[in-house]
């Protein structure tokens, strides 16, 4: 037994004991992280929340110029059937005037249908303008009353503190009158 002990004259920093200590601590660290991960991840959206992640919408009853709100993953989604004039306005603007430059073409699949998430990209209020009679802001899109963000008819940020255009949800047209969001 005695001859397997660490010799006293071994140079500091290179002993077997230092190495074992390092291995022990690393194992402990990795183990702790692995043990904590399930606790942290349990706070992410659960399977039940993710399961209700698509919404199907019938577009038939929506008239030209009308806007409706549907819920997708608990968020309001604005669906607008744009008028010729609204499409024109969205396409007329030059990109360098925009804070978050995106052509209208990149924000719609069919020019008539604008589908955006109805949550202000500043701090998450629901902008006004989707119901008739509500203010639509200086660019005839939406107006967020919380801190005064104005969005245009393509849902792009034009004025106010919001950093980004209204987000686009993933969606596809399953038929001419049916859209699947999510």
């Amino acid at each position: 037994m005695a001859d397997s002990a660490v010799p006293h004259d071994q140079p500091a920093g290179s002993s077997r004991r230092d190495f074992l200590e390092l291995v022990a601590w690393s194992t402990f660290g990795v183990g702790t992280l692995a043990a904590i991960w399930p606790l942290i991840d349990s706070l992410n959206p659960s399977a039940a929340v993710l399961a209700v992640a698509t919404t199907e919408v019938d577009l038939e009853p929506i008239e030209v110029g009308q806007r409706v709100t549907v819920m997708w993953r608990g968020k309001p989604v604005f669906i607008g059937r744009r008028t010729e004039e609204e499409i024109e306005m969205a396409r007329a603007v030059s990109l360098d005037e925009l804070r978050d430059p995106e052509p209208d073409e990149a924000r719609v699949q069919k020019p008539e249908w604008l589908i955006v998430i109805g949550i202000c990209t500043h701090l998450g209020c629901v902008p006004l303008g989707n119901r008739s009679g509500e203010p639509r802001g200086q660019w005839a899109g939406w107006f967020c009353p919380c801190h005064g963000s104005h969005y245009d008819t393509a849902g792009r940020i034009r004025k106010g503190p919001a950093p980004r255009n209204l987000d686009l949800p993933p969606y596809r047209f399953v038929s001419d009158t049916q859209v699947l969001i999510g």
Partner: protein
Amino acid sequence: MSTELQQPPFKSGVLRWIDERLPVLTWAYNELVVYPAPKNLNYWWNFGSLAGIILVVQIVTGVILVMSYTPHADLAFDSVEGYIMRDVNWGWLIRYLHANGASMFFALVYIHMFRGLYYGSYKKPRELLWILGVIILLLMMATAFMGYVLPWGNMSYWAATVITNLFSAIPLVGEPLVTWLWGGFTVANPTLQRFFSLHYLLPFVIFAVVFLHILALHQFGSNNPLGIDLSKKDKIPFHPYYTVKDVFGLCVFLLVYGYFVFYAPTAFISPTNFIPADPLQTPTHIVPEWYFLPFYAILRAITFDFLWIVPAKLGGVIAMFAAIGVLFFVPWLDTSKVRSARFRPIYKWFFWLLVIDVLVLGWAGANPPEGWYLVAAQLGTLYYFAHFLVIMPVLGKIERPLPLPTSLSDPVLRGTRSQTAN
């Protein structure tokens, strides 16, 4: 002081038997009865014990509310406004004690903190005592914010949305972080349930930190209005002198608290919170509880991108957290050797300017961030940081403090001596 413990004068053998094995009675006796407190403490020294009492009130009323409250997005609003307020015996009283108790708690703690700033109670050797206090403030803010979400009124919902969305300003991890906080893609039932869990937990964490706060306090003893180190002969035992004074202060405080609970119970509750949470209807004017207003003003004061790299939204969030963060460094930012503002003729004025500045920020925070309100918020924010980062360090170096007395009896004696000399 805390090194030599005195034995309590036990009348009962049972108590002595317990105390020999578990010295909690000795500990309590030394901290609450013999604790030598400065003779000259004024009424500003009442607010610490009042805050401790209201913490206990919040815990007791809270534990009882939970027995009738339902933490579910579909049921929470009715369980508070319907069941607790109408059906539960005394439910209205317990809820109003709790809701107004939160406001009282903040009022007491803010006064307690300004007292510390005026009398330099954060200076060596009480730095950690002050830092523990700032930690308590942060924990209180988190607790009150999550408590406000629980009744699931429309202001609860939108306050939760706006405040949690602040974290989305953090580059890269912001969005996933917010989803993680919510447990979904919006504030919803999972959010309510986790806030409930934490709202129950944090007050007990606060309780533990308060213990550390008192431990740190009793290490060197209380500061006092003169801010000088006092000798034993300038101190008196906590009981009965300060127990009596604290009970008197408590009576006065209960009058104020009772006024709100019985005569103006909804003074601090936004009317919007009597409407159930509606994810589709943002209130036109989102305002937090009054005790968050100065910080809310700072958040919204940053309307411009900072140095081209920090976007306005992130800048506002950083400024808001920095407004509390800077308090951690106050013991080192104040370079003056003199503690009490009584002997600091210039600092005294800046102290009151800071008080006014915080009130102005609060007023700006209660109003929409436009026009003069925005200007006031921006100037107020600038001054707030200038106070701590410029005025405090520079003033300590250039100000000439008044001569300090060497003990409590000293100014009196000198006064009489100079009178006789005349």
